[in-house]
Every structure is written in C-alpha cells, then in structure tokens.
C-alpha cells in the first residue's frame, strides 16, 4: 500500500511542485494551506508523514507539531519540517519539540525525496 503524505504549506508555488513530485514517486497526497486545516486533514486523511512548513497563517508549524505530538493517537506520525529561515536556533527548536527531520528552503527535489523515503523506510 502506498504511503500517505500530507503537504502543509501556504505557498501554492511550492505546493504544486511538491505534490507533482511526490505523486510521481507513488505516494498518496493530501494538501493543507494553514495550521488549522492541517490538523483537520491529519484526522481525516490519517497520513504516515507530514511535510510541515513553519511560517503559516493561523497556527505556525511549531504549534501544529506540538499539538500532534501531544496527541498519543498520532504516535507513529512522521513530521518533516520545512522552513525558509535557516537559523540554527529554529532547527534546534523544531527537533526539540518533536520533528523527525528538518529541511531548509531552498532544497533540491532529490534531497527531499531521499529524506522522505529514508524516514518512511523505503529505499
């Protein structure tokens, strides 16, 4: 069965590429444009992995991450955080509050796919 990935980002220009790319790789994809939507989608779509942007309206990626991590129902959910800022303090925070991995924009599509596959354990 194909792994399910939820893409959470408020920038359509990156979403379009991510969606295209991950679908090509055979993943099942759902989209969310802000933090609240993301939480709703996690409940409805029940993904294996979330690509989570940090800077978003309503709820930030950190908040979403903390809420998800506080909920034991989603214990096995993988979270890969994406950010446009590359500061080491943010990376430290993201990993500390429960993200499994962290990537800084701009990243190469190859690297992202490799990271996602690595997290999901598919090579």
């Amino acid at each position: 069965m194909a792994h399910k990935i939820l893409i959470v980002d408020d920038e359509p220009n990156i979403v379009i590429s991510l969606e295209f790319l991950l679908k090509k790789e055979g993943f099942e994809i759902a989209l969310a444009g802000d933090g609240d939507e993301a939480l709703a989608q996690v409940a409805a779509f029940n993904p294996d992995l979330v690509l989570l942007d940090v800077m978003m309206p309503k709820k930030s990626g950190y908040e979403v991450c903390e809420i998800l991590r506080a909920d034991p129902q989603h214990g096995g959910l993988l979270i890969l955080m994406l950010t446009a800022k590359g500061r080491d303090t943010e990376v430290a925070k993201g990993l500390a509050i429960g993200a499994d991995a962290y990537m800084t924009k701009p990243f190469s599509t190859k690297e992202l796919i490799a990271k996602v596959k690595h997290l999901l354990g598919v090579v």
Partner: protein
Amino acid sequence: MKAKQRFLIAVAVLGLLMTGPFIISSLLVWLDMKADERDMLIRLLTSRLPTGTVMTLFGFAIGVVVLHKLFKQYIEGLLRMAETLRLMLNANRDFRVSLDGPPEVRQLAAAANDLAAQRDALMDDVESQIARAKASVEEEKNRLAALMSELAQAVVVCNLDGRILLYNNRARLQFKALTQGPTSVSGGALIGLGRSIHSILEKSQIEHALEVIRQRLAAGKAALANFVTTTRGGQLLRVQMVPVRASGGEGEAALSGYVLTVDNITHSIEQEGRRDQALLALTEGSRAALGNIRAAVGNLIDYPDMETELRERFVKVVADEADKMSQSLDRTMAGFSDSLKTRWPLEDVLAIDLIAAAQRRIGDKLDLPSKTEEQDDALWIKADSFSLVLALTYLASKLQDHYAPRELRFRLTSAGKLAYLDLIWAGPAMSSETFYTWEMDAMNVGGENSPLSLRDVIDRHGGEIWYQREKAAHRAFFRFVLPVATPEIGAEAEDRSRSAGRPEYYDFDLFNFADKSIDLDRKLAELTYTVFDTETTGLEPSKGDEIIQIGAARIVNNRLLHQEIFDQIVDPEIPLKPESIPIHGITEDMVRGKPNIDVVLPAFHEFCEDTVLIAHNAAFDMRFLQLKEERTGLQFAQPVLDTLLLSAVVHPNQESHKLEAILERLGLQIETRHNALEDALATGEVFLKLVPLLEEKGITTVRQALEASEKTYFARIKY
C-alpha cells in the same frame, strides 16, 4: 665665655671681696702710723694673725660653697633646661622639662612646659586637619579611580609629555590584547604608570589632536578631538581626546594633560564589512542568475512550440541557475549568519550571573524559591540581561498563577554555538496553546508592565524558546536558546585577585613629573624601577644553566605597582635538574611549550626600558641576562641596584643579607617564596624600606647608592 671660667672668676672676685677692703684699709692705716706704732701693731698682729687667717679662710670656703651651689642651680640648671627645650623643639615633641632646682627655676620650667603643651595642642589640631584634608582628597581620587575602573570604555589620562597618569582596567585589558606575539609574555607591558602613551599611539597623531584642541579652545568651541588610528598589529582604534586643564588657569597655557577614551573598532568595522559583503552577495550575486532564469523562462513561455532539444536547453538553464542561487544563498547564510542577526545591542554576560539575578528577582517579586541544577559556570552568552531577567520572571509568575509550583529550578547547558537556559518546574502538562498566548502577550509581572512580549525578547536575542516535558521526572521546562558569546577579554578573574586593595591604576602626582629618563643624580625616590627575579635550572650560568622563569614589577613614584607585572615561565630547552625542582616548584610539564628565552627576553627588555633594574643578589641574575646578549642582541645596559648590597650598606654589622633575613629584619611578610614574581615583589618591598634608611646615611641618589654598594664586602663575589 664658658660657665666654668665664669665660675672661677666669680670665686676670685669673692676672694678679693673678702680680703681686699681689709688689706687696703690696713695699708692706709700702716702708711699713716709712726714707727713705734707700727712695731706695736706687728707685735699685736703676729700673735693673733693665725686666728684671723683661719677665720678669713673659713669665711671664704663657705662663700665658695654657696657660690657653687647657686651656680649649679641657676646657671647649670638653666643650661640644662635650654637643652631640653631645644630637644622639645626639634627632635622629640613629647619630651618635657623636669621640675627640679630652686623655686624660680621650677616656675620657669613649669611655664615652659605649659607653653609646650599649648604648642602641641595647636600642632595636633593642624595635623589632624591636614590629615582630614588629605584623606578627603585621597578618597576623591580613589572614588575617581574606582569609577574609571568600572567603565566599559578604555580610559587613559596622560600629562602633556604623554606619560600615563591613570588608566582603567578596560584600557589595560584592551592594550594587553593589542600586544603582538605571545600576549602572556608581554603581560600588559605597553601600558603602565609613567610609561609613554606614544608606544601605543602615534606621537604625531596625539600632537595633531592637541593642536586641534588648542585651536578649538581659542575659538571658544567645545574642546575635544577625535581620530582613528591603526596599531602596530593592524587593529583599528577610535580615540577621543579631551583636555585636562590646570586648575585656575585659562586658555592654551593652562593645559596640563589630556584624557583619551579608546575604542577598538576593528571588530565592528569587520562586522559591518561582512554585513555589506553579505548584502552584496545576496543582491548583486543573485541578479545575474535571476536574469538568466527570466530570459530562459521568457523564451519558454513566448515560444511554446520550440524544438524539444532547444526547450530542454532552456529548462536546463533554469535548473542550473536556480541551483546556483540556492548554493550561493546557503553559503551566504552559513558564512554571515552572525552578521545578519538582529542589531539590538547585546552584551556578553556570564550566564550564571544572569540566572542568579533572575533567581533574586523571582524570590523578591513572587516569593517563589528556586534552585539551580547542572550549570555550566564558564558559559558566556550574548544577551540583554534586563529583558531576559524580565522574561524569566514573567514566565515564573505565569507558572505560579496557573500551576502554583513549590519551587523552580534553573539549568544551564550548551551545544556548540547555542546555550540552553532551562526554567524547570514539576507539575501537570500544559497545552501548547497556553504557552503560545504567554509567548505573544505583552509581559507584566506584579503590576509592572512591559510593552515587550516574550517573543520580542527572544527575537531580539536571535534565540528561540520552547516548552518541553521530561515525562519520566514528571516535570517540564521552558528552554531558552541563546547565542553563546566568546568574551573578547578574558582572564579577568586572575586580574581581580591582584587588584585587591588600593587601586594602582593612577598616580596624579605624575602630572608634574615629566622627565623619566635615568639620571644617576636624581633622588632614589623619584626614579622608575623594575624589580625582577629569575628562577633558573641551577646556579652555574657559565656551565649551561638556563632561566626558567622571569618575574618583575615596576616601582613608580616610590610605589610598588602590583598590577604592572611581568610573569613568564620560559622553556629552557634543556632538561630540568631534579634536585632543583623542589626549590622553584617548576616542573617539566610547566616549561614545555612555553616560549623560549629568545622570545621572552625581548618582551622583558621592553618591559624594563628606561628604568633602573633592582634585584636581590643582582650579579647572579644579571649574569644570566648577559650570557644571552650575544644571542638576542639585547643589552641590559641600565644601572642595576642590588638589595643585598644596599642592605649591607645600611646594616654593615648584620651577619646575613639573605632576602629572608632582610624581610624579617624590616618587618615584611610575604606569602610564597621562590617564585620569581613573588620574590621580585618582595625585593621591591625591601627596596622601598631601604630608601629612607639609605637617606639617613646620606645616600640619596642612585650614583651614591651604586658607589656605596661597590665598597661593600659582598660586591666582590663573582658569578
């Protein structure tokens, strides 16, 4: 005429008085008599002459005794009193005339004593007033010096010749950091009381600035001048000069010195440069790549039906350029992340100091006890301590309101360039929403409102904060992530220990003390000295023994300066002798990797420039220095005084002139011995004690001291 002679004359006069009238009247009667009368008289007299003579002699003797008594009591008594009064006048104020002798003399003595008592009272009063005035001046000076030493800016005060009269700790550290080569060797050698500022700052630039100030003064403008200068080591200094005016004077002639405030702007200029570079890399650097992408994309859009091969080439252009931009952005971020951070002024703070401040405040404001756990007590962070302490207190008060924890704990750790400051409490889990509201709300603690939110404070620091649980321990913490600072100026702890007691960074008496060059005929108390001592591998320099430590301090204006020291271990490049190690306490481990004598000697040479050298048993130490002359090309040609010889000059009858013996004799105590610096300091103390003793012997100049030293027995020992 002496008292004794006068007494003899008085005795003679008494004799004449007793016999004269009788003899003269007898003579007159005799001349008037006839011959038979004279015969009868002779007959009468010869039978009774013995009685008369005896009576006369008896009367004369009593007269002499009385005269002697009177003489003793009145003449000699008064003479003694005069001597006593002289003594009271000159040597011993407390001496008094003893009340004996006849009543008249006693009255005089009592009156003299009363007069002396009155004089003493007046003198005491004057002295105490002088002492009070002196103390208040001293206190003012100390206050000024204390104030200066706390300033974060480097301040140096000089007289018009460029001699340093005052400098603060910051200046010392800053200039110490400027010295080239192994800084531990230079040991702040460049800056020191009585030294010339021109060794640090260009003389011509200082003079130009003084000229500017004079012109501004003449034009009635605010008297100050600024200049930027480079040091020998290539550091950029921004210097501000303000004049010191002689009290009471006006105009140009009244300048007596100047105050320099010095900022090392190398770092900030560098940072600004880096920021500009980053900006340039991001703008100019991206322009070309973006241009290429736009052209390629434009073609792709405008000619959708172009050949596949061409189309692929355009797409590749886009991919390549985007890739290049990504890489350049990564490079910029990696290289300039420090420069791009917030420009809010942050200071270097010792993190445990900050925690201690927060603990106090939380205790005071909220009555909430707190403890510390694991603490990295050497961790410095870049912080605005006020807002950080406020943030910690704010969080503590929020916790108190919501969870009423019994106590809080602080933890301090670090990972690479990040410091972790944790505020820990035991209690139930909190929701992340709650924390986010705490983070965004304006902070207020116990009625004290701040326009800032926790998030603002964190952003100012370029830091992060989050909430995290320690499930196993049933507790949670807020983690502040803050940038680690590398304090520019370290080693302050070591310096503080030395500066206990009276600050020695100033000497205003130097205002009128221009010429410091060595003049052998100047007073001993007026010259600048370097007292030094060496530790060596053994006692035979000619057989290959080497210096392993040099310690030295300066004496300026009759004061031993504990802050202006030279303290350096030297690698002798030969094995240490095991039997000597217990004496000097320096081991192989301590000397290996230290600079060798070729490096240390030039620094020491600079340290003692223009000073008279002092050492105990100086011939020994000088021999070691002289043996290196050929190799280093450095001559220690200045005059050398030896406290061993000077002690022999002062106390020729004492058996021992070892440093220990002299220290004991002069009532001096020092803690550790046989460490070059400690011994040098002890030698300095000894010298200062010897100066007044030499003066008593009429030895007041360096030339006299050298000549007297040469004549002592000990001067003949050769190494």
